[in-house]
């Protein structure tokens, strides 16, 4: 048996994107070793970005693949996984853009950073498609362990060390719990590890109502909730976010989280259909807690990174609404929101990195009067924060609108109302920062802003930062208004995924396909209506807060 026929037999074509990332990773490591640290810093990041973009292109060709199951059921490259892998790869690419200057300024090796980041990306991408318990666990650990390393990357900074240690400890605990849950599943199903066959085996063994299954479910959810930082498994988030290098935080809050959601959908939908009521109940609890606690505690934060940490907890709560609904619109709104979230959250982090690089602080009060000194940064940060708050016509507004609309259609009224209320709360703390930057008079300027040096874009690593900033700004401003392609992508990814269609009942599939365009039309109509209305009333609310 030669390699080619083996590859065909294993259907190895589905992991071409991951292979590209892996090759990029190896190239970076090897070339760094050969050329040396100083020289390689000039171009390794660009190799990495090119590799990640190539991987996204490869994913594009995976979209319509006929047989997504590969490696004898280990990996499932269906449309849903393609979207999630794309999100993770893009978030990694953006993270590299913003990290170049940061890592150079912190005086550590860039190539190693990129290597670890690419490893984490690889883990996340595999996690999005893993269809078997062992593969899930291995890729989860790949992602986690690289994340711990990234967290502690600035090793001379004690806060970074502390964060890494905490992350490791809590991560290990939750990982252990997850593993225990997985082993329970293995036992209950009589030795099955493939997600798709587990539930059938459990049902045939007559254990559908057993408490063991519920325990397995809760344990698995604990592992997932740790990754997506859902309350009450969120405790590590603020500490880790505050201590870690900011680009790492950006990746953790977007890429790692997206991987967590991919795992959540796949595991819960395929392995736990027997206890779907229970898992929806548990996830609802987590969603409510996340929305409330994340948004409420964010109000009291004084550090920008901690603010974004809590806000990302709240955002995860919003995304979970889509997961709980169990409808086409629910899943696709979730995917849509994650795509939008990618732009706006990474944009916000880019701005924070830039500000920290210029002033060395991330206290919110230090942003006072920034508008006078750096209008571009102020604009970009304001747009991203307002988008996170869901102010029309920015991308975040449309994301939230779709989520809440899907929730309302599915009859989850209390969740949607809670989501709306907590969104309003979130607008307060986002706008507080915007107000701090824009409204303050020159004499109220903070010391950091007073000493704000003029921005020199020619320094090494500044240009990519600028590119990242501007593209995030453009995407956040326009993705909402021109949301149709993203929208179609999100809808198609759900409609083309057999796993979800199976879970939603096969008969639904053709109807859903017909409905999709009408839904999108309706929504875009509503969007234009609401955006005009809200746009008018916006200044008032800004003044009040």
């Amino acid at each position, binding site marked *: 048996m030669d390699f080619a026929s083996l590859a065909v037999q294993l259907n190895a074509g589905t992991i071409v994107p991951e292979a590209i990332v892996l090759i990029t990773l190896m190239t970076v490591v090897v070339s760094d070793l050969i050329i040396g640290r100083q020289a390689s810093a000039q171009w390794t990041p660009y190799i990495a970005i090119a590799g990640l973009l190539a991987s996204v292109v490869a994913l594009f060709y995976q979209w319509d693949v006929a047989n997504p199951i590969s490696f004898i059921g280990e990996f499932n490259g269906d449309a849903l996984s393609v979207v999630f892998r794309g999100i993770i790869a893009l978030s990694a690419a953006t993270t590299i853009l913003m990290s170049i200057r940061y890592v150079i300024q912190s005086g550590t090796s860039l190539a190693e950073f990129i290597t670890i980041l690419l490893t984490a990306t690889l883990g996340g991408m595999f996690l999005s498609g893993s269809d078997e318990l062992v593969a899930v666990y291995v890729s989860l650990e790949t992602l986690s362990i690289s994340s711990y390393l990234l967290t502690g990357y600035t090793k001379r900074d004690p806060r970074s060390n502390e964060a890494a240690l905490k992350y490791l400890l809590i991560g290990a605990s939750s990982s252990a719990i997850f593993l225990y849950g997985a082993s329970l599943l293995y036992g209950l199903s009589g030795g099955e590890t493939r997600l798709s066959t587990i539930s059938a085996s459990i049902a045939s063994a007559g254990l559908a109502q057993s408490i063991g299954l519920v*325990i397995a479910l809760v344990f698995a959810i*604990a592992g997932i909730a740790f990754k997506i930082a859902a309350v009450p498994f969120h*405790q*590590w988030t603020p500490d880790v976010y505050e201590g870690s290098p900011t680009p790492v935080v950006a990746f953790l809050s977007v890429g790692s989280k997206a991987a967590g959601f991919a795992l959540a959908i796949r595991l819960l939908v395929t392995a736990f259909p027997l206890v779907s009521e229970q898992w929806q109940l548990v996830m609802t609890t987590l969603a409510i807690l996340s929305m409330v606690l994340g948004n*409420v*505690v964010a109000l009291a934060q004084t550090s920008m990174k901690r603010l974004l940490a809590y806000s990302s907890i709240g955002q995860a709560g919003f995304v979970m609404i889509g997961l709980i609904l169990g409808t086409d619109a629910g899943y696709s709104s979730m995917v849509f929101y994650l795509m939008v979230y990618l732009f706006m959250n990474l944009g916000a982090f880019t701005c924070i990195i830039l500000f920290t690089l210029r002033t060395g602080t991330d206290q919110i009060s230090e942003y006072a009067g920034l508008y006078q000194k750096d209008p571009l940064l102020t604009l970009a940060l304001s747009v991203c924060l307002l988008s996170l708050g869901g102010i029309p016509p920015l991308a975040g507004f449309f994301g939230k609108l779709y989520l809440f609309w899907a929730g309302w259609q599915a009859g989850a009224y209390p969740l949607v109302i809670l989501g709306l209320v907590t969104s309003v709360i979130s607008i307060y703390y986002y706008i507080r920062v915007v107000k701090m930057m824009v409204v303050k008079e020159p004499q109220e300027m903070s010391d950091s802003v007073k000493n704000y040096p003029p921005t020199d874009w020619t320094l090494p690593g500044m240009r990519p930062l600028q590119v990242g900033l501007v593209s995030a700004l453009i995407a956040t401003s326009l993705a909402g208004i021109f949301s149709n392609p993203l929208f179609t992508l999100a809808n198609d990814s759900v409609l083309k995924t057999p796993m979800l269609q199976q879970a939603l009942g096969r008969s639904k599939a053709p109807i859903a396909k017909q409905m999709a365009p009408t839904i999108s039309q309706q929504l875009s109509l509503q969007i234009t209506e609401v955006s005009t209305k809200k746009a008018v009333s916006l200044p008032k609310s800004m003044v009040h807060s």
Partner: protein
Amino acid sequence: MEFIYQYAWLIPVLPLAGAMLVGLGLITFGKDINRLRSVNSVFIVSLIGAAMTFAFGLFWSQLQGHAPYTRSFEWAAAGDFHLTMGYVIDPLSSLMLVIVTTVALLVMIYTDGYMAHDPGYVRFYAYLSLFSSSMLGLVISPNLVQVYIFWELVGMCSYLLIGFWYDRKAAADACQKAFVTNRVGDFGLLLGILGLYWATRSFDFGMIGERLQDLVATGSISGFLAALFAILVFLGPVAKSAQFPLHVWLPDAMEGPTPISALIHAATMVAAGVFLIARMFPVFEGIPAAMSVIAWTGAFTAFLGATIAITQNDIKKGLAYSTMSQLGYMVMAMGVGAYSAGLFHLMTHAYFKAMLFLGSGSVIHGMESVVGHDPAYAQDMRMMGGLRKYMPMTAITFLIGTLAISGIPPFAGFWSKDEILSSAFAANPLLWLIGYGTAGVTAFYMFRMYFSTFEGKFRGTDANVKQTIRNEQLQNMGLAFGPGAMDPRELTMDAPLGETVDPGQDEHHAHEPHESPLTMTLPLLILAIPSTLIGLVGTPFANYFEAFIHAPGEVVQLASEAGQETLSEFYVMAGSSVGISLIGISLAVLMYLSRKLDPGAIAAKIPFFYRLSKNKWYFDEFYDQFFVQGSRRLARQVLEVDSKVVDGVVNLAGLVTLLTGEGLKYLENGRAQFYALIIFVAVLGLVIFSGVS
């Protein structure tokens, strides 16, 4: 001739273009444009002149029996809903075009003299032109939607022009009052339009009437609903034509410059209400309830206006109440089905009332040179008297107008008023009686006005009279101080009455009024011609007017062919109404010319009626108490609810979230063991939670 029909849309567009050009010029190069006074005024006057020429051409063609011409295009369509715009030229609209353009042209010429010293001269012309355009657009509208659009536009122009001297508080208040009062009526009109559309699926006047008849006949909608819609539509004219109970804005609107009072608040815009009733006649005709509401509203307004006008000392206010009263006649005529009579009176009234107003403006202009630029003195008839010596042309034309409005043959008002009265008699003798009595009162107050202004001796330099007026004013102000809302007038209490406080200014004043310049007297003289003669087109001997303008579907024959019977009836009616007018005039002569009777003594004998009339039947006070104060109270209570309850809830929510945030923050104590503990506790809790449920 066909081409003038095709280009008839130019009539409203020409003045609009003028207004736009001058307006844009004012916005961009304010100072320079303001200096080019004569260029601007000549430009705008020539545009309206061109429009007038067009209008006469159309009128002539209609008179020759040209078929009505309608042109429309689709403006908006959604599904099976089509909204068309366009214009219609029929006898009614061609007549209205002629009235509006001629009065507008004369008023614009007059304005040159009247506003010569005003810094807002150019702006005034721009507004005038805009108003003319809107009014012309209104009269050629082929459907209710377009009527509504132009209806609002003329309302807006009226608002702008009443408040033209916006730095005078009285003017600013008056324009707001006019606007708000008109909103009430316009709201009714809009509801009515929508209701009628809902019922008949049409905005076209004729079609609405036809379909409404069918619907009521087949029982698809109840007669009550049809009457309700008709009355709602009628609310529009009630506000615009200053009918009871929405008449209160018209007298206050006299705060605007006098040319405006003549053009908008006497001749054209206020007549728009009557015009709309005429347009909607096919609808109203079939609904007896609506017709009687219209008739009685008109009759009551006619009486109300006349009784108030008796005691007014302000010359313009007096004329305003007489306008209201005359509009009441027209509305009453519409209500009793006398379509042509109402429109005939509209036409004659437009000319003689415009002339009277312009005459009053001329008087005020003359008085201002003696008493200063203060409306309180310059417009008060107690300061006037004997002006005929100084202003002969104004006096003669004013006398003609007075005779016309009093219904003395052969002046214009006689013929039209008499036609209305005889139609009213045929419909309901009680209505006739009200109209008849009002005619007598009208003659009395108009001659009172004429005598106290132009006859006797000049009182403009009499310090006693001045002091009386001043005291009265202060008293009025004191009365106006209500409790509650802050009144900015309190601040000006110490230095009231505007420019007269400057003592140095008085010394420059002449001791005698002077005749107005030619630009002002010429329009008066020109208007005197139709005021005298135009009634002759509608005599009962040969009613050319009715032959030209009659309700749709009505067949009219010239009265001369109708036989002797109606003519003898006419003599009885005409004789009696001339009789009562003469009685009114004689009373006025006795009281104000020869001073045989003392008006003060009569007023003292019937104090209740005197005060009722003097205080305008207490409508303003009643509305103030009931609507203004009432809605303020309501607003204040809602504000209380908002600031206490709603804000409280919002603040509480904010406080709770902030406190929760601050509190929960301490769950993050940085200890990893504690975090792990929370994870395990959470897992345990969730297992129990999901296992139990």
